């Protein structure tokens, strides 16, 4: 390998080489961080919700305006919805995964000010919510029918004595790893905070707001049906029944209460609500992908352009090298080696710049640090891009005739 002569020649043509190396360094620093943000955002958007089939579980949200007897209306609605063809199960709840809005409260292991509060979603389950969502109890037991309370918030401030918690919340509240079954937690950390006993642990269950932090999996499930107008019905449909069921469900509910105002989304699947929730993540990822591709194209074009210019400037020199015995392969190797040296320098500078940029992003966007495998992949990708970009001009150079050596061009 003629690395030393190539370095020697490059040292006398610094500007072009420096510009390409700088462009590669900048591209590397930006694209590796962009790729990592893209990966992070897409991973967030792809997090499991705990719902076993998001296309089959749908929610109907509405505000009831005319009925004075909400308890009777809820029971009539459930009975009606169970009769709609394509509906497998119906539940009444106050909030749904990815729903956007819902209840949350601070939970503590003690009812004193010293006990730290852990904020978690509060899910009201009429006894059918977990079944309808397809969420399983992984430890302990589910509610018995007699534990389900019907609570009118206008007349009662009762709280059910037993709850289920999600696994992630259990870990956060009891980090020692001991079983949480039978443990008492408090709805707040004040002396008068209601105490509830944990009777079961459920696996994943996404909160309505699906936040980016680990808290998106913190939920407490209460065995209660709340008599309020903003309740929501969760329906589990038979596979592929969404379209045919949609109008029937809305019509049935309208028949039970003609004055009812349906929510903006009407009947929306969990999958649709997930897409809506993560629209921002997908938009950022798409934008960054576009910027990354654009940068890579610009960089590749820069390398192709510079290599083509150098080939044109060195036509005579290439002819002389061929005359002196260089094979076509030697000429290709020369340009590829030259490019590897420039790209390698750019990538090394890029790794440093990427780390600096990442450090800033970690501070500003609470991103985790760049993983070394990702950096290594970026290094390989940029070098492949560099070599791939120079191959065309290098092969064209190798096809120049050695007779150029004797021409006065």
């Amino acid at each position, binding site marked *: 390998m003629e690395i030393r002569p190539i370095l020697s020649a490059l040292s006398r043509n610094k500007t072009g080489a420096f510009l390409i190396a700088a462009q590669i360094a900048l591209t590397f620093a930006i694209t590796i961080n962009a790729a990592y943000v893209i990966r992070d955002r897409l991973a967030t958007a792809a997090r499991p919700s705990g719902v076993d089939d998001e296309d089959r579980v749908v929610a109907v949200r509405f505000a009831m305006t005319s009925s004075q007897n909400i308890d009777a209306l809820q029971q009539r609605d459930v009975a009606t919805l169970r009769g709609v063809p394509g509906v497998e199960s119906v539940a009444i709840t106050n909030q749904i995964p990815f729903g956007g809005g819902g209840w949350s409260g601070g939970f503590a292991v003690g009812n004193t000010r010293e006990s730290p509060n852990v904020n978690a979603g509060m899910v009201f389950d009429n006894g059918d919510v977990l079944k309808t969502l397809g969420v399983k109890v992984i430890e302990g037991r589910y509610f018995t029918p007699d534990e389900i309370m019907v609570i009118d918030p206008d007349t009662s401030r009762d709280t059910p004595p037993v709850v289920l918690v999600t696994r992630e919340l259990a870990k956060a509240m009891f980090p020692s790893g001991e079983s949480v079954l039978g443990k008492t937690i408090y709805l707040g950390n004040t002396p008068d905070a209601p105490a509830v006993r944990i009777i079961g642990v459920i696996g994943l269950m996404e909160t309505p707001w699906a936040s980016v932090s680990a808290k998106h999996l913190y939920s407490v499930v209460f065995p209660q049906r709340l008599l309020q107008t903003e309740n929501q019905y969760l329906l589990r449909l038979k596979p592929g029944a969404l379209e045919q069921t949609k109008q029937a469900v809305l019509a049935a509910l309208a028949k039970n209460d003609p004055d009812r105002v349906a929510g903006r989304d009407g009947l929306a699947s969990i999958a649709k609500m997930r897409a809506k929730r993560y629209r921002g993540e997908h938009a950022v990822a798409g934008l960054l992908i576009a910027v990354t591709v654009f940068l890579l194209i610009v960089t590749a074009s820069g390398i192709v352009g510079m290599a083509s210019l150098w080939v044109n400037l060195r036509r005579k020199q290439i002819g002389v*090298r061929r005359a002196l015995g260089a094979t076509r392969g030697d000429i290709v190797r020369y340009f590829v080696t030259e490019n590897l040296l420039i790209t390698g320098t750019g990538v090394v500078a890029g790794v440093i710049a990427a780390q600096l940029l990442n450090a800033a992003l970690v501070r500003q966007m609470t991103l985790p640090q760049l993983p070394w495998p990702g950096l290594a992949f970026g290094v390989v990708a940029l070098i492949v891009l560099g070599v791939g970009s120079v191959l065309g001009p290098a092969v064209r150079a190798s096809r120049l005739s050695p*007779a150029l*050596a004797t021409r006065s061009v």
Partner: protein
Amino acid sequence: MLKMEGVQKIYRTDLVQTHALRSLSLEVEEGEFVAVTGPSGSGKTTFLNIAGLLETFDGGRYTLDGKDVSGLSDRERSKIRNVKIGFIFQSFNLIPDLNVYDNVDVPLRYRGLGGGDRDKRIKDALERVGLASRLKHLPSQLSGGQQQRVAIARALAGSPRILFADEPTGNLDSLMAREVMNMLEEINVQGTTIVMVTHDPELARRMHRNIHIMDGQASDFDHGSDSRSDAPVDRIAPRIVASV
């Protein structure tokens, strides 16, 4: 050493065919110092390109150092150029970004020689041309004559069997031209065959023999054939065969 029989070269464009060499036949013996003369456009450079395996030819037969080179691949031709042939060009053709040492090193690297062997050959060759003290100089820091001496060192470093020189003194003043010619003659005396294209009749007279190329054919010298042609040369080699 070099034998061409009926070699033809035709340059083609969409509209025109140009017969650069028309059934050219000639022979150069080992150890000879031959001048190739002829007017501009006569085919001298085409002859040199084909003889030096820089270009392929369209017909005839060419034997170099006992090997028929007619059907060789590009890679095989490169190998022969690298090992058996040395080139000296009118405009020196040194690589401007490389110093003297690295310029002489270029063909040796393509031969795949080890670092120690290359170093010895480079220093010996530069010693031979009197430039051993200029290893780190760039071509731009040397005079024309010195640059041509570096080019000669580059040609000699690979110990070629034959040297092709394309007007090696064309860009030099008379003093430097004489110096370079003396050097080439010395190289020839030491056994290297040299074929030199030249416009200079004085130089041609110093050769063992002259080959005159006219209209793509090697032919007997004719003093009155071209008013622009070179001055008379001493004699025309009996081995030159004019053919149609």
